[in-house]
Structures are given as C-alpha cells and as structure tokens.
C-alpha cells in the first residue's frame, strides 16, 4: 500500500488544530469535533480523497472521558491512498457529531449504523433512525457495558410479543463467547477458555 507522504505537512499548514494521530498504516489526524467537517471537505476537494470508505466509532468505556471517538476512513481514487480522521465527541452522555452526509451521500447509512450501535447523534443527518436493530430497541449494543449475550427486552411487534410471552432474552453463553483473541497462549486464547456459562458454583454475572 502506498502512503500519501506529502499529506501530513499540507494538512498541518492548513489546519493547525489537526494533530497527527498514531497510525501504523496511512496518515491519520485527530481533529476537534467542530473542525472535522472542514478537514473532510478539504481532503475531498483539494486532496482528492473522493471516496468515504467508512464511518465508525470507538467507545473507550464509561471510565474514560472523552468517551466516544468518531472515525472516518477516506480513499483517493486518483492517488490510491487512504487517510483516517478521528474526532472526539464532546459529551459522554449525549455524544453528537456533525453529519458528513452533505459531503458524501454514502455517509447516510454509515452514520445510521454508528448511531444504532453507539448512540452517537449525527446532527443534521436527514434520516437518523436505527438501521440494524428495530426502532424501539432500547440499547446500543456496541457500547462497552452492553453484554454480548444481550439484555432482555420486548420484540418489535406488540401483539406477537404478547402471544409468545417472553420477547428478547439473553443468549446462553455455555461454552462461549466463541471468539479467539490474538497474542495470548493458546490455552487462554481459545473460545473454550472463556466459558461464561453460569452454574451453581459460578453465579450469573449481573
């Protein structure tokens, strides 16, 4: 992968508030939330980063403040290089970020997904609804405090909910979670070692 070596200097001249962000691959910048759109606009129109690859977010957990970071990945179809832009949300309780739908129409669904999973409100978004979970779902599943197994709640359809009694339940975690983590010894990395099953001896975690 080629890197845009001239980009960091050009950006720091134009945007003194954009700090370089540690990155192992492409150039990356930290910007204040209110300056993010200006930088994205500059990257699109002046630097040729015409394709918005992804909009996502990071939850640094409830103990950390600022808690939420929004990340944009851009690609240039002329230079064939990538750039990453990150901005922290000012509020931890009501995270918000200006929408990029004015710059790329494709930001629409990415932002709806980030809203669905993290609860970040993209101000100015034309249609900010959940995209994967149903509209009345009460949680934001990719937040750190949300358990993989899920929390009990109602299903989307009220009469079907009434008919079957219990709606959404926590998934059983016997033998799981079924993910392996890199960098640990095999005995600790494999899914079986992470068994979250609860029994008489091991209480169900609250």
């Amino acid at each position, binding site marked *: 992968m080629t890197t845009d070596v001239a980009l960091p200097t050009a950006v720091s001249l134009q945007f003194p508030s954009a700090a370089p962000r540690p990155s192992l691959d492409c150039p990356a910048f930290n910007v204040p939330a209110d300056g993010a759109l200006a930088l994205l606009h500059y990257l699109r129109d002046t630097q040729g980063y015409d394709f918005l690859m992804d909009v996502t977010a990071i939850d640094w957990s409830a103990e950390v403040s600022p808690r939420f970071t929004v990340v944009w990945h851009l690609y240039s179809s002329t230079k064939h290089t990538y750039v990453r832009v990150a901005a922290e949300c000012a509020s931890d309780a009501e995270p918000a970020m200006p929408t990029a739908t004015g710059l790329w129409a494709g930001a629409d669904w990415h932002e709806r997904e980030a809203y669905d999973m993290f609860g970040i409100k993209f101000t100015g978004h034309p249609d900010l609804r959940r995209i994967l979970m149903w509209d009345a779902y009460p949680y934001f*599943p990719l937040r750190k405090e949300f358990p993989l197994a899920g929390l009990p709640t109602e299903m989307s359809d009220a009469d*079907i909910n009434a008919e079957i009694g*219990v709606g959404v*339940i*926590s*998934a059983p975690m016997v033998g799981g979670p*079924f993910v392996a983590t890199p960098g640990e010894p095999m005995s600790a990395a494999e899914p079986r070692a992470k068994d979250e099953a609860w029994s008489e001896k091991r209480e169900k975690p609250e």
Partner: protein
Amino acid sequence: MVAASPEVTYNSKIEGDITVTRVDAAINWLRTNSMWPMPMGLACCAIELMATASSRFDIARFGAEVMRFSPRQSDCMIVAGTVTYKMAPVVRRIYDQMAAPKWVIAMGACASSGGMYRSYATLQGVDRIIPVDVYVSGCPPRPEALLDALMKLQAKVRQEPALKKQFSAA
C-alpha cells in the same frame, strides 16, 4: 321375491376399481405426497435449500417441489437460516397466515438453536416462536439431510389423526 335395487347392491362390474380405506389414511396420503413448502430462507442454509430443490437432489421426488412464496398456499414452513430478533415477528406472522394443517422444519443449527450466534441479535431457536416438527442438524445441513427431514415429517403426518390439525391453531 324382492328384486334388489341396483343402486345399493354390490355391482360386480366395478369390482377392482374400489379401494376400501380409512379417512385418515386417505387424507394423510394426499397430504404427505404434496407438501408445498414455504421457503423461509433467511441465511446461508437457504442456499442448501435451493440445492435440494434443484435437479441434483430434486425434492420433487418427495412431492415437495412447489415452493410457495405465499403463506396461504403452503403446508410446511422450512426455516432455513439465522432468525434475528428483528425478523422473528415476521416469521411468526407468516406462520400465522399459513392455513391449517401446517408443519415446520427447522433447518440447520441456527434455526434449531441459534447456532453459533450466541448474541443479542439472534433468536435462540425458532421453536421459541413457532412449534417445530423436525429439526435438522448441520451448518449447513446437506440436501440429503433436508430430504431425510422431509421423509421424517411425512412419516409423522401419516400417523396423525387427519382432522386433528384442521381445527387447531398450531
């Protein structure tokens, strides 16, 4: 001597064209040999369901080749794939729309138990929302396994009192 009325006596001319049977056996014979499936293809298992329907495995040999995309016309819902909580009310509603008698095959690990998706988004087995008649193991099950499930379902239907399902909701 009273002449026998020709309408009610045994007519030897049509002997051999009459089969005496029980109503249950006759109705169930009809049902088992034309079980129209409702293909509830929700994930990767649906690919195997399609393979089962196409020429190599040919589910038509068992009378179940008429996949109906209208629940009103189908007898047997084949739930092939991962049922998410968002989709679950829809699956239940389609099941409710099917006319009795109706049956359900849960095809694959996901439909039977949630499979590998032990997560907040996945219904942990379609039997939480609809009654399942046959479960098929596998991820995905081979087409032979689905055909076997269909034959098992046919064996089950053959033993049912034919009118029992007609009036019950489930």
